[in-house]
């Protein structure tokens, strides 16, 4: 379990300007194997919260506990997909995806197999030899997703991972993610701007309010699993939830 215990964050500014309060006292428990999504207006601190859970940025106050122990920096148990992709520019698509496997000393043959699998998953097999600067925005994002999935972290921390994708690819990757999640029962902390995406994927949705970010609502998504897109779209509760959360967001900003 991941426990957020009154986590807050204030950014000090290099130029010496006024500090920016990004998060104020966020508390939440994220159960093992849960699919939790965070939604909230732009600039409310979603990415910041994810950085703190990942152990990349220290909280200004409060603590993040994994299995009861405070986290000590990043670890391969929590795999991030960043909003900015953060691909290694000196590595090709294939080498980027392979990176984590090499770090985990996965045997060569097994690693190659997994990389090929993921290249297919994100439809990039024919682009495997290209460098990041030669990719389109959506292609970069897919590489970033594949790179993190490759080393199979127990928890996925995903910051708008499908933001730059077309509807078709997005839908396919959503389904793939759900399948992986159902198969391997990962914990997922997911950030998105798409309320429908949030409802379709999650067990639980945390709605954040604007700066300094705080949790305004914690909504359980009581829809059946496994989910099938067509069925769900016709499910009355689905529509209800989308409208309810959408309305909540409207009054937030």
């Amino acid at each position, binding site marked *: 379990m991941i426990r957020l215990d009154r986590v807050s964050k204030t950014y000090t500014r290099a130029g010496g300007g006024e500090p920016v309060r990004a998060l104020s006292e966020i508390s939440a428990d994220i159960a093992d194997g849960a699919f939790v999504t965070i939604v909230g207006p732009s600039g409310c601190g979603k990415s910041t919260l994810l*950085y703190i859970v*990942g*152990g*990349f940025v220290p909280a200004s106050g409060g603590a993040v506990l994994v299995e009861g122990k405070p986290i000590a*920096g*990043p*670890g*391969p148990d*929590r*795999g*991030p997909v*960043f909003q*900015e992709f*953060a691909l*290694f*520019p*000196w*590595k090709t698509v294939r080498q980027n995806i392979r*990176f*984590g496997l090499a*770090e*985990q000393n996965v045997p060569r043959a097994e690693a190659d197999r997994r990389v090929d699998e993921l290249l297919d998953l994100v439809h990039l097999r024919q682009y495997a030899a290209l*460098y*990041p*600067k030669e990719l389109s925005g959506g292609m970069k994002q897919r590489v970033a997703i594949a*790179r*993190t999935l490759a*080393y199979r*972290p127990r928890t996925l921390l995903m910051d708008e991972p499908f933001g730059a994708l077309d509807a078709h690819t997005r839908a396919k990757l959503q389904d793939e993610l759900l399948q992986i999640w159902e198969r391997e029962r990962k914990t997922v902390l997911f950030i998105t701007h798409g309320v429908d995406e949030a409802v379709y994927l999650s067990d639980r949705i945390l709605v954040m309010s604007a700066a300094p970010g705080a949790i305004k609502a914690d909504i359980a998504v009581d829809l059946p699993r496994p989910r099938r897109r067509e069925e769900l779209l016709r499910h009355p509760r689905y529509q209800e939830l989308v409208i309810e959360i959408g309305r909540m967001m409207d009054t937030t900003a």
Partner: protein
Amino acid sequence: MILRALRSCYSVLLLLAAWELFARSGMVPRTLLPPVSLVLQRTAIALATDTFVADLATTLFRLLAGLALAVGLGIALGVISAQTRAGRAIFEPLVRVLGPLPKIALFPVLLLTLGFDNTPRIVLVLIDAIFPVMLAAHYAARAVDEKLIWSARAAGTSPTGCVLRVILPAAMPQILTGIRVAAVIACVVVFLSEMVQPGDGLGDQMIRAARAFRSVDMFVPIVVISGLGFILDTLLALVRRRALGWAG
């Protein structure tokens, strides 16, 4: 192919032509500016002379040994010091105090403690050439996009692995720029050391020629050391293009 090479450095040819014409115009005495054709001719002759080649080899050895040490140590110190707060706190003042100090002023001490031969000159090249490498490595290591490091750390890369496999490659473009500057400084310094304390090497050749008023011979070692620097620089540029195709 040759034509393309010539066209790519037409400015150099233009300059050489201007030098030649100016020197032959009679506006300057031959002793002050011999025609470039004469200098090149004499250089070709010198390069076929054993003693000159021996001096060239001496200088080249000192240059490369000092530069190699400077590059190795400079990258290591620069990158490692960038990793911790304490490292940065020490690095900054250290390079601020020692960096701007003209190391050539310490050369006599080196001579007295290390002898006249190669060692003091290699050390001089080292302490002069290490700063651009170290500075570039340090600041580039600090400027690496933090999300790249985060991505690697999250994939289970140890801090050391991060330095080797993320920070080093990400900082490589700037480090290579630093190495090119270091190569230049190394050329300057090794030559200067041989001018200040002659004995052997290209700098010694030049000083002897200057003192004996052999003005054409004075230009020969300068042409040769500049040629060395040029070759070194071209090689580094080649490495850069090969290894850094990924950079924008």
